[in-house]
């Protein structure tokens, strides 16, 4: 019984975390982009004009959803009505459930039972993530096809070609990551990053696999189809790409799916390369500082510090992606495909060979 209750609570908590962070990122993107471009940004939020100050992010978090969900449910003539409704579902659903495989803390003891602080407690966590991420392609393809709109169809074709191309580089880069950890279990990967190397440096994956980090981060950004890689929805060419014919809640689903993918990429990069929930030099019994010895910390504080470390790292990488999105101009389509097929794919392949040879040369194989 308690197994079911714990499972339900954990999955609900993580879903709410991803949804809230996605909605919050929407606001950060509006205000952050305004900051970057020397504008003020969304600044007209008030309740009937009675509140004397600007209600800031209520704009995005309350007013926008109310407006979106009270729009007419509109499907243009000639659209495939079933697929038209299915597409936003297929876009947002995989993006929401991917984050479940990412561990957000060490296991804790709760009422005599050990609870792993991640939802999908599988030893093939990385495969789960890969499977769910690649399901995101269907949302774009179905949306473009169901819309009966030439620009939407072109956008979805571009989008699917781009997503599968970058998925390849991402998959190959993940092989080299699996090589160096020797496991597909995300929790084991995070545990492996808890040691220190050279006596002071936290053994984060980025120090062992810097090339794979860059490839996975870039490929992840391409998967979420945001600006440098937003060819599928290039507004000067294709109106809005595959979601041209969508409005209201369905449009909101596509938008949230984009931001949920940003959160997923941030979580993936954090877990694989930046120690996941590992707080630097913090073990289960307290801090083991390089020169100053050990500081004892209680188990509760350790768990809280780990949760905080994880959230901060994820937030940092979300912010980094938004920063890139507002700094770099859009790629041309041939540049985009060249980067994926001629740039990142051979580099990822060479990285796999190099990693494998290095592991054997260091005598780690049997």
């Amino acid at each position, binding site marked *: 019984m308690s197994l079911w209750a714990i*499972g339900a609570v954990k999955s609900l908590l993580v879903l709410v975390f991803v949804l809230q962070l996605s909605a919050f990122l929407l606001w950060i993107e509006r205000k952050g982009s305004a900051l970057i471009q020397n504008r003020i940004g969304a600044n007209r939020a008030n309740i009937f004009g009675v509140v004397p100050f600007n209600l800031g992010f209520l704009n995005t978090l309350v007013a926008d959803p109310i407006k979106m969900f*009270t729009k*007419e449910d509109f499907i243009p*003539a000639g659209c495939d009505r079933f697929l038209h409704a299915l597409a936003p579902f297929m876009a947002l659903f995989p993006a929401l459930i991917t984050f479940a495989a990412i561990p957000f803390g060490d296991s804790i003891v709760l009422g005599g039972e050990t609870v792993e602080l991640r939802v999908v407690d599988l030893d093939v966590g990385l495969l789960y993530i890969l499977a769910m991420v690649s399901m995101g392609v269907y949302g774009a393809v179905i949306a473009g096809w169901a819309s009966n709109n030439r620009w939407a169809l072109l956008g979805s074709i571009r989008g699917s*070609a781009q997503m599968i191309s970058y*998925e*390849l580089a991402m998959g190959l880069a993940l092989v080299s990551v*699996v090589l160096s950890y020797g496991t597909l279990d995300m929790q084991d990967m995070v545990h492996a990053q808890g040691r220190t190397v050279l006596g002071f440096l936290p053994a984060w994956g980025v120090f062992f696999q810097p090339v794979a980090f860059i490839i996975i981060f870039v490929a992840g950004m391409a998967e979420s189809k945001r600006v440098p890689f937003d060819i599928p929805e290039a507004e000067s060419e294709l109106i809005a790409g595959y979601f041209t014919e969508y409005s209201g809640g369905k449009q*909101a689903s596509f938008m949230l799916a984009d931001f949920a993918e940003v959160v997923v990429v941030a979580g993936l990069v954090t877990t694989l390369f930046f120690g996941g929930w590992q707080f630097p030099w913090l073990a289960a019994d307290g801090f083991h500082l390089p020169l100053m010895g050990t500081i004892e910390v209680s188990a509760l504080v350790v768990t809280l510090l780990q949760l905080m470390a994880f959230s901060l790292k994820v937030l940092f990488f979300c912010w980094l992606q938004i920063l890139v999105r507002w700094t770099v101009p859009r790629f041309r389509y041939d540049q985009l495909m060249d980067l994926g097929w001629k740039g990142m794919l051979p580099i990822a392949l060479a990285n796999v*060979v190099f990693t494998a040879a290095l592991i054997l040369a260091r005598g780690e194989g049997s």
Partner: protein
Amino acid sequence: MSDYIPVFFTLVFAAVIVAVMVSLNRILGPRTEANAIKDAVFECGNEPTGTAWGVRFAIKFYLVALLFIVFDVEVVFMYPWAVIFRELGWFGFVEMMVFMGILVVGYMYAWRKGALEWR
């Protein structure tokens, strides 16, 4: 099996949340009269003729899809190899190099034939 209980809950909760988001407009939104202008798809203001499903697009996209299938299947073979790589040792390394060599030959062929060029 108990590992999959939270997976089940995640799938159900996510499905419910998304389904509510997609269908909320049907309940909350207004209903207005349909007319030909309003129902038309938006193609930059041009009047759409016929359906969009006959639109022609570059054959390149098919090539990308074919190449993707080939390479993706190869990458899938690498995951189990990567997990037990330390037990396999040099034998496994040489085996994978042969496998990867065939992959690289195919890749170079595709490159030389211009399958990766966009014009």
